[in-house]
């Protein structure tokens, strides 16, 4: 029987593409370590042989490049899966962590912590991730309330999101002006990027992304039920308000953890789920897991471009994702307009 539930073939392809992106990203960098030698080094690490790299080169590979790739993958997965979840909950193809004010809220939360207690970016349960989560959840709640009070519709929600995001960003700027000495630190971070990434950041983000992704994957079927509308979902024994709350909390957590390590990276949450829907099917049971893998792939590749296009200078990765994402967003917008 034909169903669009996740096919093993699709999962395998997505995994292979991700693996290829990781490999390509490991071989390419501002410092040319030599592809053969990097491959030999990976082989040596896997088999316990002797490393062909110098200590400095090994450090560049294992302490800078690889954690940066892992972090990029985690952030991309988090942004893409939360985009898919927001689109499902709001039944709005253009919902995304950035357009809903979630990212701006997370940014504000993180900024407040950086301003009040600079250098306290430590652990997964430290003040920064918590503040970022509260900011993200607050941003989404505000957007959803404003959007609903102004009437239903794709455009209304997005306009409310734009207003909320601008407001939160303005508050963030205000907080920054009051704390001029942290200005530089936060501004670099706001442009988005993995310039300061290491294994420590990976450990901060990993638990959040795993938890949020697991919740969203488990809820994927319920998101399909929500797509029938609240009355039908309710007549099927589902409580729409509860499901929405759970999914929004998980998506906000994913957004917040992404934003708190990498700043603002736009469009991943829109581009990836849409490409997945085009290629593999529209059921959230397909879209959620494949967006995780696709988001990781997309951001790892975008970071390769950011690192190497103007090496040794780095492009902010947000610029790279916007270059591909903005035109794509317009295409989706046109499609949504035609269907409405």
């Amino acid at each position: 029987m034909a169903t669009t539930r996740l096919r093993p073939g699709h999962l395998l392809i997505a995994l292979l593409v991700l693996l290829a992106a990781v490999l390509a990203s490991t071989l390419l960098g501002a410092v040319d370590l030599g592809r053969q030698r990097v491959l030999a080094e990976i082989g040596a690490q896997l088999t316990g042989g002797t490393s062909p790299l110098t200590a400095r080169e090994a450090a560049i590979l294992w302490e800078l490049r690889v954690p940066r790739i892992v972090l990029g993958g985690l952030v991309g997965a988090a942004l893409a899966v939360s985009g898919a979840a927001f689109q499902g909950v709001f039944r709005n193809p253009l919902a995304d962590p950035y357009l809903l004010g979630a990212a701006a809220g997370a940014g504000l939360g993180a900024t407040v912590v950086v301003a009040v207690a600079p250098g306290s970016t430590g652990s997964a349960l430290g003040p920064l991730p918590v503040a970022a989560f509260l900011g993200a959840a607050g941003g989404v709640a505000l957007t959803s309330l404003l959007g609903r009070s102004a009437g239903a519709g794709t455009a209304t929600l997005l306009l409310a999101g734009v207003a909320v995001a601008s407001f939160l960003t303005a508050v963030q700027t205000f907080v920054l002006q009051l704390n001029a000495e942290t200005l530089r630190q936060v501004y670099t971070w706001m442009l988005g990027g993995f310039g300061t990434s290491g294994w420590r950041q990976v450990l901060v983000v990993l638990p959040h992304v795993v938890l949020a992704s697991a919740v969203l994957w488990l809820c994927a079927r319920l998101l399909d039920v929500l797509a029938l509308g609240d009355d039908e979902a309710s007549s099927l024994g589902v409580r729409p308000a509860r499901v929405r709350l759970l999914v929004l909390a998980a998506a906000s957590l994913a957004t917040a953890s992404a934003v708190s390590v990498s700043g603002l990276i736009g469009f991943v949450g829109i581009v990836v789920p849409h490409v997945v829907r085009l290629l593999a099917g529209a059921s959230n049971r397909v879209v959620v897991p494949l967006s995780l893998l696709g988001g990781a792939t997309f951001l790892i590749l975008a970071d390769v471009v950011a690192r190497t296009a103007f090496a040794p200078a780095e492009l902010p990765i947000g610029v790279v994702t916007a270059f591909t994402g903005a035109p794509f967003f317009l295409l989706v917008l046109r499609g949504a307009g035609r269907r409405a």
Partner: protein
Amino acid sequence: MRLELTSVSAGYSAVPAVRDVSARVGSGSWLAVIGPNGAGKSTLLKAVAGLVRHTGELTLDGHPVAALAHRERARAIGYAPQTPQLPDGLTVTDYVLLGRTPHLRPLAREGRADLAVVADVLDRLDLAALAGRSLRTLSGGERQRAVLARVLAQQAGLLLLDEPTTGLDVGHAQALLDLVDRLRREDGTTVVSTLHDLTLAGQYADQLLLLHDGAVAARGTPARVLTEPLLSRHYGARITVLSTADGSPVVAPRRT
């Protein structure tokens, strides 16, 4: 399943859209709720489905519906709204599988038994050939059948169908109602539906409930309810009631 309503009032605002409605629908029988626009037909169905708050008593086989847990109620009562939303990219099978939701534990996925139920429903509704098609590509009649299949996959003893023939031509409307009729005969399913086509309502339902301004204006067999004085008064229309060879009423509008 036997449905009983005793002095049921329901609605969204302080002024209820449905007032003091009592009715009794026996197991395996079909009640059609008729009435002019805004009479409260859809609200009555939603109240039975538990989607709108009600006062008064609503019982299924003698047990109050309000006492049922969310999922229990969903296993007993299937509901198809007047304008169902069909998620664009889903296939027919995926869509119908969503009807199994009340039978699954929260967050669980469908097992082989659920797939078998769905395959059987698709077969009975002649949808097997469309199983892998995207909902987007279906015609109006196929969409209505898919919605019915989604509700049937719920395997509920009581079906609430809000205007199931909306947008269907007379042939497709008949085909759909024939299908519902067969199901209730074969499975003993109880059916409550709103129907705007009075002739079809009279031909398929055993009992009609005529609502006007939220209250019961008349109830009984089609022959008792589909009369010129009753319909003219409550619909504010010029109407002639004819009779077919087998004696079932035909409601025809008149120009003058």
